[in-house]
């Protein structure tokens, strides 16, 4: 019996030793483990921004938690699927057996939960866009088609940041900012989360996390970034411009709009289909009035399920080795540039339109063209009402605002086409 007692004690000792040496704390002190510690701090900062500062919490909370969970050492939430090991001198039938096991989910256990979500990242942005479409009212845009020009002009920042990234890549070749990465960075200026995520997923998946974080953070910062630029570029007279009331829009137009836009835009730029097609599908579900249940589901249960999964997956893709680099700094820098230039682009075209129409367009609504629905439109309203509290620009700004969503999806399509995403 002594032997058993010894066995037991030795087992106990082994077990407790394993417990200590295999804990996550120990992992911080081996190899690059300390980097995880920094990533955890970054995740906590992001959580603070999301919860304390209310920066786009619906996405930033899941992203932060994903980042946290994937950087807690050994948690294995991002473990890849590991197929049964290939025997030496394996034959075709051996591999066939492994395949059969895989097909029947026998290796699924090795799959981390967040990896499971991550592998679906290709379809999530489209599903979110469907939900966004089911919540968007294109009425103000239909009533005032000129808004589309502003929505186009406010994509300027995307291209400037794209060129900026290429210039940085030229100056510092080590950054590895090639055309694909540059396009993904530029699209931050689209101020549209799902568009940025889809483009990055296709062109530069390694940069998914920093680009998504930058996109959503800056979207939340729209009320901080935009007003100084808007005021610097406009005169007091321009900011005081009152706009004519929008014409009423019939339901028929609202129904035709998504159908026509789907056909036209996808014919011109087939690569926009996953974004424009699903955005307009969602909008059709809402506007046709006979599929209320589908529109509700698309913009509630389905969209929020996808948001949880996409958010955590994007956050979980934030590995220390790609996140804690000069690239991330570059992305943050270029992202804010993109936002600023896009705002300027919208305002400047607004000024031109103001001139051309003899003062019928308030240039402030151009800033709403950056997307960030409906935040940017509200910023336009606010800056306008600072000059004249009785001037209500909100509905006029909603036109460029939703036009900006279409605009950045079009730019995404252009990048995917040119760069073969």
């Amino acid at each position, binding site marked *: 019996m002594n032997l058993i007692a010894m066995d037991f004690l030795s087992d106990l000792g082994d077990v407790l030793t394993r417990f200590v040496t295999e804990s996550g704390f120990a992992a911080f002190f081996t190899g690059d483990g300390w980097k995880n510690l920094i990533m955890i701090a970054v995740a906590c900062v992001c959580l603070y921004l999301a919860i304390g500062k209310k920066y786009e919490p*619906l996405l930033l909370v899941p992203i932060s938690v994903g980042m946290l969970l994937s950087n807690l050492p050994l948690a294995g939430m991002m473990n890849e699927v590991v197929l049964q090991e290939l025997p030496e001198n394996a034959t075709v039938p051996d591999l066939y057996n492994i395949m059969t096991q895989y097909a029947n989910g026998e290796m699924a256990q090795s799959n981390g939960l967040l990896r499971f979500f991550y592998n679906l990242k290709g379809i999530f942005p489209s599903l979110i*866009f469907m*939900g966004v479409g089911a919540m968007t*009212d294109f009425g103000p*845009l*239909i009533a005032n*088609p000129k808004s*589309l*020009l502003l*929505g*186009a002009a406010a*994509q300027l920042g995307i*291209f*400037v940041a*794209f*060129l900026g990234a*290429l*210039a940085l*890549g*030229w*100056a510092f070749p080590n950054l590895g900012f*090639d*055309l694909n990465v*540059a396009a993904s960075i530029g699209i931050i200026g689209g101020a549209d*989360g*799902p568009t940025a995520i889809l483009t990055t997923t296709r062109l530069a998946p390694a940069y998914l996390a920093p680009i998504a974080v930058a996109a959503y953070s800056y979207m939340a910062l729209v009320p901080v970034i935009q007003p100084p630029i808007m005021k610097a570029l406009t005169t007091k007279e321009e900011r005081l411009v009152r706009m004519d009331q929008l*014409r*009423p*829009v*019939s339901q028929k*137009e609202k129904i*035709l*709009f998504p159908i*026509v836009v789907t056909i*036209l*835009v996808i014919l*011109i*730029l087939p690569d926009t289909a996953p974004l424009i097609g699903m955005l307009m599908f969602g909008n059709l579900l*809402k506007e046709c009035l006979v599929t209320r249940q589908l529109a509700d589901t698309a913009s509630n249960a389905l*969209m*929020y399920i996808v948001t949880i999964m996409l958010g955590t997956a994007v956050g979980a893709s934030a590995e220390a080795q790609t996140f804690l680099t000069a690239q991330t700094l570059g992305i943050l820098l270029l992202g804010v540039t993109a936002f600023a230039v896009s705002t300027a682009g919208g305002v400047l075209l607004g000024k031109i339109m103001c001139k051309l129409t003899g003062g019928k367009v308030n240039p402030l609504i151009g800033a709403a063209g950056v997307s*960030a*629905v*409906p935040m940017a*439109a*509200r910023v336009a309203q*606010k800056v306008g*009402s*600072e000059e004249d*509290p*009785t001037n*209500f620009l*909100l*509905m006029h700004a909603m036109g460029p605002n939703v036009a900006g969503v*279409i605009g950045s999806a*079009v*730019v995404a399509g*252009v990048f995917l086409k*040119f*760069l073969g995403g």
Partner: protein
Amino acid sequence: MLNSILFSTGSDNFIEGLGSAVSGFLITFVVLILICFILYLFGKAFHKPTAETKAEEVKTEEIPAAPVEQAVTESAATDDAELVAAITAAVACCLGRSTDGFVVRSFRRIGKRRGR
């Protein structure tokens, strides 16, 4: 030296990117102008009643009820923005203050839309 910079991958990328950027911006404008054009056709096709014809219709067909109804449906069913704007306006008018403070309450309601 200059050569090696100019003809590095970086410079090639930049030049190619410049082409892409310019043409991409052009294409974006072309596409959105096309939609803009179609929406003008929409306006012509679906929004014929001018101020005068409207006035006539009022007498003959009792149409005015329709726009009102529609407006209600719109604001209720889709985007609260109009409602918010109207309320904000009304309140701001009464109090003669900036609308800044009032937006907070409506903020949460519209906030849902940002949830992408």
